[in-house]
């Protein structure tokens, strides 16, 4: 057991932190957010240059050969900076599906992701779906020349600007079955595919998709048609681990900002951090943060578990815990900042909004507690 970083891990962490510290001030961020794609194109190029876009890909495919821990380090730094770029969508989810389910030709695309010339988005949610990874209602049926896809997707992160889209569609089985899901890799300009792009409540970009008789070839399917559910579930778990790390980065920044405010803001003639009631609340924020940090580690270290049920239980526990922590730290940060915390121009609110949305993504704290309770909890051995 060892919690220290390897030299290579430290390099990835420092490269990401340095890039973001240098080039992600709040003005720069506002400029990136205002672009049509909603993020910094030049940042994306810089990540590519540093090798960050290939962190989890095999070295033979142009990547760094890293795993969930390396992704954790990148995402934590992203969370600290509230970075807008589609790392989760393109590298973690899109790249993850190409890696796990793609054939050789499809996996060759990873090099283009790593080079920063291809962005992906994965459509994990539908207007009426439960949020369970394999709750897919979009249907693909066989036609003489391949497949025809009909359905709708919603809140596809960066779905408006991505070059290609990965669309899970059902080719068999009942609505929530793991079996019967095909993963289609489609060009964003495919006929019959319409996209409605918008900013989400945290200022990131997402899109609603409508697929109306979209045609696809067999070559557009990742892996055997109908066998995509397991990869999808696994990659969503990897997405959860990445989100947990992002949340920890954002919570760290917010906690530090709040502590600084307590030390500098004067009221009734003293720094408000002198008031013991506020001190104890600052301590609770710190305890919650450190516990969340542990849980993000647990998520990163558990997501490699090849046993789907064990892996899922660990990720449920982590996501539930992090969502709760994010809620607590977000609310307390705003409260302890008083009026200032309520203002749009001050950074605390941006962290608060992003943390709120992280809680709601891939299942909220309540969804995951409910799922974990149904699956019997973490401690299952007999006495």
């Amino acid at each position, binding site marked *: 057991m060892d919690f220290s970083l390897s030299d290579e891990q430290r390099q990835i962490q420092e490269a990401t932190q340095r890039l973001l510290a240098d080039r992600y001030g709040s003005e720069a961020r506002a400029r990136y957010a205002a672009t049509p794609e909603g993020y910094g194109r030049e940042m994306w190029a810089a990540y590519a240059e540093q090798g960050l876009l290939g962190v989890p890909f095999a070295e033979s495919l142009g990547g760094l050969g890293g795993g969930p821990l390396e992704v954790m380090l990148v995402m934590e730094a992203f969370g600290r900076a509230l970075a807008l770029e589609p790392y989760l969508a393109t590298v973690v989810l899109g790249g993850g599906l190409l890696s796990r389910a793609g054939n050789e030709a499809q996996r060759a695309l990873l090099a283009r992701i790593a080079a920063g010339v291809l962005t992906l988005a994965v459509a994990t949610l539908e*207007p009426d779906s439960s949020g369970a990874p394999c709750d897919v209602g979009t249907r693909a049926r066989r036609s003489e020349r391949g497949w025809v896809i009909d359905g709708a997707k919603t809140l596809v992160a960066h779905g408006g600007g991505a070059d290609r889209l990965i669309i899970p569609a059902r080719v068999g089985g009942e609505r*929530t079955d793991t079996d019967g899901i095909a993963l289609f890799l489609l060009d964003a300009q495919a006929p019959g595919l319409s996209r409605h792009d918008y900013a989400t409540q945290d200022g990131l970009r997402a899109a609603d998709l409508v697929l109306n008789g979209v045609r696809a070839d067999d070559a557009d399917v990742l892996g055997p048609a109908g066998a995509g559910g397991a990869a999808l579930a696994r990659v969503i778990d990897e997405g959860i681990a990445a989100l947990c790390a992002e949340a920890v980065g954002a919570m760290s920044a917010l906690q530090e900002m709040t502590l600084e405010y307590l030390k500098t803001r004067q009221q009734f003639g003293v720094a408000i951090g002198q008031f013991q009631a506020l001190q104890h609340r600052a301590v609770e924020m710190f305890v919650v943060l450190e516990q969340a940090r542990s849980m993000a580690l647990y998520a990163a270290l558990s997501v490699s578990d090849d046993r789907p049920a064990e892996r899922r239980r660990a990720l449920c526990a982590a996501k539930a815990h992090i969502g709760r922590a994010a809620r607590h730290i977000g609310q307390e940060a705003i*409260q302890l900042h008083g*009026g200032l915390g*309520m*203002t749009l121009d001050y950074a605390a609110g941006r962290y608060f*909004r992003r943390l709120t949305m992280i809680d709601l*993504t891939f299942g909220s704290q309540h969804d995951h507690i409910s799922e974990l309770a149904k699956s019997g909890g973490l401690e299952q051995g007999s006495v």
Partner: protein
Amino acid sequence: MQLQFTPAELAFRDQVREFLGQALPAALRARLTDGAIPAREEIIAWQRALNARGWAVPHWPVQWGGTNWSAIEHHIFQDELQQWPAPATLPFNVDMVGPVIAAFGSEAQKRRFLPRAANLDDWWCQGFSEPGAGSDLASLRTTATRLGDRYRVRGHKTWTTLAQHADWIFCLVRTDPTVKKQQGISFLLIDMRSKGITLRPILTIDGSHEINEVLFDDVEVPAENLVGEEGRGWDYAKYLLSRERTGIARVGSSKQLVRRIRQLAASTRRGPRVVLDDVSFRERLVLLETELKALEITQLRVVAAAQRSGGRADPLASLLKIRGSEIQQGLSELLLEVGGARAARSAPEESDSAMQWLARAAPRYFNWRKLSIYGGSNEIQRNIIAKAVLGL
């Protein structure tokens, strides 16, 4: 001891409901139900409708439009408006500056300002908070220097709610810099069109424009706009703040929101089920309901005590503020949970009005964090109870 309303009280309640049904546009009611913020014109129209009915300023002196209702009747009126829901009357006019002018203003001030305030011909805003003096009003730094029949005002107010709509602002200003803290503060009425006033919007974390900074750069104010005596502004402010608490628990609003959440949770699909099928969601909702029911009784106890004591400020008002804000915030979280991941979708251009609640769920959750901050933060309320009630 009895908790039931008397027949007369019930008849009054029905009167209020009948009026609400006639006077408030159904479309506005539906939008408020979904968390929309009423427009300036809608607030004005509604207050004028109430004023025409004689109900805009019920707790003012009868001479100036008051109704001489019992405390219970006041409570029923507030509760029905909140439950409907209807827009609130403008608190700056109705609960703040009006009562202060009625109690401490000159006859000329009363005649000039009160009828216009009641009818919302003048929109008032409140100039108390300053940068660096949020909950610590005594340390304020805006000065008003007497020059013959005028004051010259310099300073910087902030967190000024809806100042962008306002015709007038009532301010706490320091008229005597040589005495310290609460002394030397006066209560001044300032025309927002005066030369030297600059308004800067402050957007809140939900992106809405509710609050402002108001800068005073040598603004000249006629001395006749001083309320009461110089140096007694702090007393008037305390009088105002002690009256501001009426209905602050917003129990009626929360009851309405509980019903709305249950309705939405029963119709919002989450895969094969609806949100209300989730046992844990239902239990969290009823847990808040039991807290709300307790708060409703606590509020009635305060109202009944006020009935007996003739309206003196009750230290339990701080309790109402604390629990009232916590319950509202808790409900805004449950509403967000009904929306789930889909609440991330911002949709100002959304034409489907049936989904407005969803587009408003996250902004409302964000915005309502203010409920435990503004108007004396919950920490300040706890300090008040510790001192005034517990003697710590």
